[in-house]
Each structure stands twice: as structure tokens, then as C-alpha cells.
């Protein structure tokens, strides 16, 4: 058996190589953060199934791959045509190839004056104080190896900052594409700061240009300012050989509204972490998720909603459609602190199993320390309803189509919650296609 130490050696050596290439920059704030994170990652090592948070998700396959150096995987000669199929129109696309911002492929015409939307690497140069005030504030890595690893390898990602009372009407799309022919390791790091009463819809999409092994280990930090209204959508449809770990950290200030819609279609092993801290009164937090998995895919969604203040509401709906030998994991933690009276939290997890060999492990975890709260949770696991299938067939609809219609309706419930039209339309066809592929296996 390979020990934890051996598995992390490659990352340490890559870290040292990057460190050397930094020259003078290696002494700054950022690099101090990276070094602490690298040390922490070395101590923690990759989690195993003995770790409570990873009980059902065995990531050992991804720890055995030798990736190419992040320094080697560059973005040469890509054109818009290469990536157009992943884009959502031409406005406000920030494109990242193998984790690095591709300014030539990015468009930001619809971004209003005063709003910063670009690369984190640039922001570190132009607005270092603003970045450092927030970077790593909510994405704590003490107990989280993947966040530590991401932090150690912070190079680039998206940086968005919206001033008070500013609405960004056109959604901002962040496109993360991996291209390298060999196994690639990327660590996108995104920081999104939104001012008081601002409005923003942001979409993260992860895709691969070829069927190759990649490890995408992304971290996104969002600060939702007082009264801000933020929608964050994520679409993961990388190749079926991809490993994907993404951690979203949201800090919500007073009276803010935050919605996350996370759709996972691709990847061999995918782990999504969403943590929201409701850190002011009157916040509303909605977390929705949809996984569609076929073959031997494993899709794991872990959510944490931390009700730190009174009078906040959270709604959570995670759905999974599992075919073949696919495996789903859902773990939903809701934390209601002592002072968080009048909390209203609702969590629902629904799984549709299309095959006998598909499995789901689902676990709600409610930890409630306040007494005047309303918290509910429920989980259902089932197959398509025979009576519904029969009703459709009895009107002339063929059995396959009846099953398709019902399966898509199950997924559509989440797709409809996405307010970004461009994404919603693509989701409809992507989910259809994914379900078709699953059936033809």
C-alpha cells in the first residue's frame, strides 16, 4: 500500500518547481499562504474512506495518477472555434484553459463600468489589498486537504468584484476547459465579492476538450454583501475520465439572497462541496443540485449550511438520477447555532435509480443548538412509478419514451430553478443527451 506521504510527494515536488519559477514573487503574502497550505496538505494527505467526510467516496484512483506538471500544461493556439460549443453566447465569457485565464478567448462587453471581472492573477497585481483581505477567509484549509492543495497551487482563476448597489444584468460565465493530451492537474481559484444590494448571476462550467484524465481541484469563494442577490450556477460536464473536486464557500451578509444550482453530468469521480455561512439576519439561502450518472461514475455532493444568525431561511433540494453501476452520495449538514432563533431550514434529497446496480448513500446531518427553529429534512430513493409509466403508455406513448419523459421530468424540476436562460436551454439538451447515452450503454 502506498502511504499518504508517498502520494503527496509529487505535489510537493511540483510545488517546489513552481516556487523556483516565481523568483522575486516568492516572498509576498500570497506565497506565504501557499506555503502554509502546502505544509498542511502534506500533513493531512489525501483523505481515505476512514475519514468520516469521505466514507462513501474512495478517491484512491486519482491519487495514483502521475499528472503532468501544471507548469507544462499551457494553452497554446486555442481559438474561439475550439471552445465555442461550451460557451453560452459571446457576452461575458471568461475563459480559463488548463486553469489559466485566456484573455484572447474571453469577452466582457456586457460588464458594467465599475465592475471588475477578470483573472485573479491580474487582480493580485492590480488590487492586491482587496484580494488579500478576502482570499482564504472563508475557504479554510486546516481540515480540508483539497482546499489546502488548491490554496498551495493558487495561480489563477476568476476575480469578480461588484460595487454597492450595482446590478450586473447579463450573467457572467466562467468557462474552465482542460485541453492537455496527458493527465492534467488544475487548481482554479475564484474569488467573487459583491457589494451591498448588488445583483449578479454567475455560471461556472467545467468541460474537457478530449477524453483524458484530469484532476480539477477548484475553490470558489463568494462574499454576498448586505441585501445582495446572487445566483451561482455550476455545470460540470467534463469527460468521463475526469476527476473533479470543487468547493464553494459562501459567506452571506445580512438580508442577502443566495442561490446555488449545481448540475453534475461528467467525471469519473466528482465531489462537490458547498458551504454557506448565513452570517447576518434575514438571509435566504437556496442550494439545489442535480446529478445524472451512468456507467461507473461516482458523484458525491456534500453541503453545509451554517445558520449563524437568527431569522434566516435555507432551502435545499438535491436530486440524483443514477443508471448502470453509478454511485451517488449526498451528505447535507445543517448547523443551527445557539443564537440562530427563528431559523427555517428545509432539506430534501431525492434519488431516482434506473438500474439495479446503481446505488446512493444519503445522509442528512442536522445539528441544532437553538430552540425556536423549524428544520425539516427528507430523503426518498425509488424507481420510476409504474402507475405513471402505465398512464403514459395507455395514451399511446411508447414505453421507452414514457420512461424518458418521466426521468426528464424528475431532472427538469432542478433545471427549471436555473434563472440564467442561456444555461437553462443548454441544460435541457445536455441532460437529455446524457440520459440517452446512459440508456444506450
Amino acid at each position, binding site marked *: 500500500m502506498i502511504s499518504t506521504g508517498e502520494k503527496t510527494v509529487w505535489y510537493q515536488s511540483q510545488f517546489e518547481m513552481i516556487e523556483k519559477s516565481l523568483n522575486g514573487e516568492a516572498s509576498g503574502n500570497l506565497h506565504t499562504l501557499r506555503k502554509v497550505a502546502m505544509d498542511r496538505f502534506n500533513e493531512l494527505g489525501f483523505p481515505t474512506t476512514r475519514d468520516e467526510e469521505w466514507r462513501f467516496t474512495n478517491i484512491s484512483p486519482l491519487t495514483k495518477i502521475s499528472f503532468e506538471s501544471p507548469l507544462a500544461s499551457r494553452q497554446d493556439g486555442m481559438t474561439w472555434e475550439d471552445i465555442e460549443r461550451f460557451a453560452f453566447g459571446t457576452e461575458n465569457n471568461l475563459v480559463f484553459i488548463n486553469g489559466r485565464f485566456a484573455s484572447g478567448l474571453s469577452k466582457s462587453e456586457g460588464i458594467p463600468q465599475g465592475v471588475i471581472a477578470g483573472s485573479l492573477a491580474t487582480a493580485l497585481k492590480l488590487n492586491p489589498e482587496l484580494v488579500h483581505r478576502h482570499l482564504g477567509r472563508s475557504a479554510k484549509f486546516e481540515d480540508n486537504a483539497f482546499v489546502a492543495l488548491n490554496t498551495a497551487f493558487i495561480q489563477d482563476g476568476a476575480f469578480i468584484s461588484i460595487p454597492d448597489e450595482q446590478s450586473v444584468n447579463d450573467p457572467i460565465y466562467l468557462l474552465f476547459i482542460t485541453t492537455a493530451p496527458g493527465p492534467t492537474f488544475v487548481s482554479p481559484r475564484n474569488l467573487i465579492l459583491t457589494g451591498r444590494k448588488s445583483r449578479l448571476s454567475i455560471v461556472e462550467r467545467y468541460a474537457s476538450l478530449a477524453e483524458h484524465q484530469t484532476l480539477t481541484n477548484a475553490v470558489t469563494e463568494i462574499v454576498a454583501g448586505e441585501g445582495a442577490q446572487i445566483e451561482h450556477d455550476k455545470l460540470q460536464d467534463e469527460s468521463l475520465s475526469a476527476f473533479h473536486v470543487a468547493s464553494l464557500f459562501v459567506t452571506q451578509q445580512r438580508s442577502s439572497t443566495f442561490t446555488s444550482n449545481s448540475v453534475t453530468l461528467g467525471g469519473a469521480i466528482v465531489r462537490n462541496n458547498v458551504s454557506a455561512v448565513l452570517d447576518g439576519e434575514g438571509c435566504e439561502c437556496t442550494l439545489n443540485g442535480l446529478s445524472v450518472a451512468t456507467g461507473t461514475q461516482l458523484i458525491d455532493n456534500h453541503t453545509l449550511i451554517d445558520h449563524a444568525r437568527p431569522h434566516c431561511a435555507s432551502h435545499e433540494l438535491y436530486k440524483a438520477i443514477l443508471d448502470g453501476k453509478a454511485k451517488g452520495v449526498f451528505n447535507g449538514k445543517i448547523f443551527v447555532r445557539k443564537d440562530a432563533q427563528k431559523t427555517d431550514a428545509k432539506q430534501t434529497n431525492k434519488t431516482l435509480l434506473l438500474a439495479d446496480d446503481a446505488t446512493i448513500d444519503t445522509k442528512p446531518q442536522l445539528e441544532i443548538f437553538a430552540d425556536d427553529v423549524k428544520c425539516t429534512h427528507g430523503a426518498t430513493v425509488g424507481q420510476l412509478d409504474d402507475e405513471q409509466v402505465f*398512464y403514459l403508455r*395507455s*395514451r*399511446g*406513448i411508447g414505453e421507452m*419514451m414514457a420512461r424518458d*419523459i418521466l426521468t426528464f421530468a424528475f431532472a427538469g424540476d432542478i433545471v427549471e430553478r436555473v434563472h440564467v436562460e442561456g444555461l437553462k436551454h443548454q441544460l435541457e439538451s445536455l441532460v437529455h443527451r446524457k440520459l440517452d447515452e446512459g440508456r444506450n450503454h
Partner: protein
Amino acid sequence: MLEIRNLHAGINGNKILKGVSLKVNAGEVHAIMGPNGSGKSTLAQVLAGRDTYKITVGEVLYQGRNLMEMPPEERAREGVFLAFQYPVEIPGVSNTYFLKAALNAIRKHKGLEELDAVEFLQLVRNRMKLVEMDETLLHRPVNEGFSGGEKKRNEIFHMAVLEPKLAILDETDSGLDIDALRIVADGVNKLCRKDNAIVVVTHYQRLLNYIVPDFVHVLIDGRIAKSGGKDLALDLEEKGYDWIKVEYEKTAELA
């Protein structure tokens, strides 16, 4: 059009239909009445192809073909329609989407062109008037949150769009208010033609004032205990089912 011969069916070894025979010709209206639990819905579901019920004995011919060998969708495409006693809710699927898929599947089977969105909408608008259905119900998910009466009206609306040859209406009248009953019955009558047939399952004679049956059958304990003309329904209304049971048992003993 339809010939049921000595049909026995049940579920998990539990016998429900115990030898039903019935012949329905084109242009006829048949009513099936009978006490709760006597097997009326089972008969209707078996005819539509619900495979949870196992057929142990007997056969069913539809237009000369063995109906029991056809999957439910093929029966529908060949013109069999069941209005469910308990219409099923389909969350996430709009009524129009569902109907369009159904209609086009049937048209395709008949070798007809599929209707495009505009043609379909025209047809639907026209049929909606027939049962005076509220347009909002078109765009809502199938039956989800519909009131009892709305569900029943929706079943007849589906029938109006799909234009079946053999319509089996399982207690479509229960749950309808007095006006709705008349409207729905009028709608059904307008769909009656020489070349199609209707089987109505009902508990109430009132419906039969509107949809006048040529034959009334009484199903008791999985058998047709008595058949007659429309006046039989009036007798049942007045006297209940006991006398038929007594009469039926007597003839059974004699035989």
C-alpha cells in the same frame, strides 16, 4: 369491435374477475354498474393493458385481434382509451406536452404526419371548448393539483383529442358537479359516432340520462350477473343490488 370471452384475472393469486363475457359492437354504448370492489376498474385496467393483473383464463378480441398480446401503447394507438377512475398525477410534465406526445405517437402509428406546434394548438383549443376546460389546465403538469372534477374533465379532454374507437370511462361522473356532469356528458355524446363504441362504468343512473346506454351490465363479484336495457339502471337505482345477487345465486344453483 370488442369481445371478451370468459375472462378470469387477478393479482397475487387473488381472483378478481371470475369469468366475464361481454360483446361490444361499433356504435353501441354499454354501461357497467355494480357494487364497490366487484371488479369494474380491474376489467377496465386489464382492457387497457395494466400488467399487474394476471390473466388466467379467457380471451379478449379487439377488432379481430388478440388484445391481450398487445402492449398498452399499441392498444391506445389502435384506438383503445381508458379514462381512469383515479387519473395519475405526472409532476413536471405539462398537459400539452404529454398530449402532443400521445397524439403524435398515435398519428405516426396510423401513418399520418405528426402535427406541428401550431396545428396541435389549434386542435387542442377546439377540443378544449368541447369539454369547456380551463386553458390554464393545459399548461399545468398533468393532473398535478387538479381538483377531483378537473381531473375527470381532463380525461375526457384527452379522449376528445385522441379520438379513440373504444372508450372506457371508469367512473368519470364521480367528482363532477351537476353542471360539469352535463358538459362532460355532452362532450362524450359529440364524440360518439357509428364507428366507435363507449363503455361507461358508473354507480349512478344520473349519468345515463345524458349518455344513454344501449345495454346495462351488472358486475357482481367478478361476474356479469345481469344484463339488460337502459331501464335496468332505473331498477338498480330504486332497488340496489341485493335482488340481483339473490336472483343470480338461484340461477347458479339451478345450473
